[in-house]
């Protein structure tokens, strides 16, 4: 094959490949856009800056008030004020009903922690001084494990919590949303 012919053929394949690559990336972006519109929209932490004093969250405000840790805000809607601290979670366990829309408001009194509800896309960085707000509807009843997945010190690997999704009355424990 002469030089010119080689160059021409490489260019043809190269253009085809780049078009394919760009097409795939556009497809991925379209899929991301599509998923953002559904249930997953809630798992993106809120962009509004809700600030708290990490030194005070355990003595005042909703995280310090046992009556406000899990609150029913409307029919089928709950708000959970959760704390991730070295090295545990509060409340523990968190109990919410199946099929309810649960808004988690999570903060830390000390360092950064993770709040990952295993088997769900609830996976948040818990930053002291900030409130992470995410929303999720648990379609499957049962017990979930909450894992701290951000290094927070020597007890990091012992930091687990429990989240119990209580079967709602009149509904079977089916309807697995996954």
């Amino acid at each position: 094959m002469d030089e010119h012919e080689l160059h021409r053929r490489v260019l043809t394949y190269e253009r085809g490949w780049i078009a394919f690559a760009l097409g795939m990336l556009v497809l991925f972006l379209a899929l991301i856009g599509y998923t953002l519109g559904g249930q997953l929209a809630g798992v993106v932490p809120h962009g509004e800056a809700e600030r708290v004093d990490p030194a005070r969250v355990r003595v005042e405000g909703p995280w310090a008030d046992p009556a406000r840790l899990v609150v029913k805000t409307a029919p089928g809607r709950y708000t959970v004020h959760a704390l991730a601290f070295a090295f545990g979670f509060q409340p523990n366990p968190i109990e919410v009903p199946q099929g309810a829309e649960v808004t988690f408001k999570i903060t830390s009194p000390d360092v950064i922690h993770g709040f990952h509800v295993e088997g769900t896309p609830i996976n948040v960085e818990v930053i002291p001084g900030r409130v992470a707000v995410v929303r999720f509807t648990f379609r499957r009843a049962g017990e979930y494990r909450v894992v701290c997945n951000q290094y927070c010190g020597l007890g990091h690997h012992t930091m687990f919590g429990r989240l119990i999704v209580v079967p709602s009355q009149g509904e079977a424990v089916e309807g697995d949303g996954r």
Partner: protein
Amino acid sequence: MAVDLRAHYSAHPEKRATLYFLALGFVVFVVGSLFGPFQALNYGGLDAYPLLRRLLPFLNSYYQGLTLHGVLNAIVFTQLFAQAVMVYLPAQELGLRPRMKAFWLAWGMAVVGLLTAAVPLLADEATVLYTFYPPLKGHWAFYAGAGLFVLSSWVSAYVALELWWRWKRAHPGRVTPLVTYMAVTFWLMWLLASLGLVLEVTVLLVPWALGLIEGVDPLLARTLFWWTGHPIVYFWLLPAYTIVYAVLPKQAGGRLVSDPMARIVFLLFLLFSTPVGFHHQFADPGISPFWKGVHSVLTMAVAVPSLITAFTVAASLELAGRLRGGRGLLGWVRTLPWREPAFAAPVLGLLAFIPGGAGGIVNASFTLNYVVHNTAWVPGHFHLQVATFVTLTALGTLFWLVPQLTGKPVSEGQKRLGLTAVWLWFGGMLLLGLGLHWAGLLGVPRRSYIVGAPPDAYADPALTLPKLLNAVGGVVLLLALVLWVGVMLGLLLPRRREPALLEAPLPLAEAVSNADGRRLGRALDRLGLWFALAVLLVAIAYGPPLARLLEQLNPVAGLRLW
């Protein structure tokens, strides 16, 4: 044969300096890598740390070892390798001597920075991992040392850019030679990218650790960290890309199929490497989802140059294989010089880079990211990228670069052993990569001493196989490392030097199509303009969200929880 080494080094002082960077880099690599297998065994469900503690009594915890592994391998080794090759290669290509005082200044700063940071690391005073997120608060010497170490790369950037300016002045109107073009775009990218980390360390962390300021806003610190923390992976990657574009086709016996395409790739990295950091912060509160979306789109854009690289490098290798007599759809693969570790190492690394890159697309995908964020999937990903491709390319490079710098020949036996080490490294990393990705999908968190968790925490039978893969991968990697150290000592310890090796030119590949004398080449060469565009993109992608973070500062007190 007698070699007048002193005369050679006085004619080529850059060779000696390059050797110093490489030697320090690889000593750090070996030390840091020794911790790796113990972490792999942890993810295999086996606690070998008590053994390691008996060997290294200063070691207090898994997390101290993990901090050392991350800092030494991911930050120190990679930067020293870049400071060596991304100055040496353009200097050789242009035939110019670098400003030696600055070259040595960079080395001195790197050494002093490294030693300053090493003291608190070894003393367990900075067990904050290589991301050192506040409010975990390490000793000031760790932040100051790390800052000085990173700043030494700015001096290396000056040395490389000054070579380019000198060449440009002497050759007005000419298009920059390819390797120099790669080095210049690389260093410009890094100057812009490293600004975040340098600001975080100098303005926030050092004053805070010294007690000059009360608190630090952890979200602002994270944002500045990831300003640098993502493009730093291209800082690790692009020296390897430079080698697979400029040297590998020559070693394969062929040519680079497209010189302009290689330039476009590096230019795209200059433009898109930095304004992408929020894809590490999808899970962070207090950052507008809109800006996270912008960074997600830009991250997809920065995948484009890697996809083009896959094509160009593969096409160049196919050309080489066919020139060597290979026929048929895949027959050319067999004819390539697989017995040469300098060839096999980067090519195996490129193979691992394919699944690694696909995983990277998953990480960058806004909503998919929540499934894998901070799970073992993430270290699985970057072990395929930096610990396999970048590291294997660096290991392979030594087989031609060390003879050129020292005149010491590589024997056939050393090549065979080296090849074994390379394959073991590749195999071990594939096992570990698979095991970590798999465990991550099953919810196992990253950077966790899981063998110290309650006994039933990771007893799920589904984890049996991924844990086995991690443990076996770690042991294979330890063998690879020991073998490789043996090969290097065998290469470096004998005193025999050959003048022909010292005088050998850089093994640079010719290109099928060139940029010089073409309008495209001249347009790509207007790097001042392209750099300004890169700055503008960063200003757009980071300006508004950073301004909001500064408005809403919420500094908190530091803590030591180790």
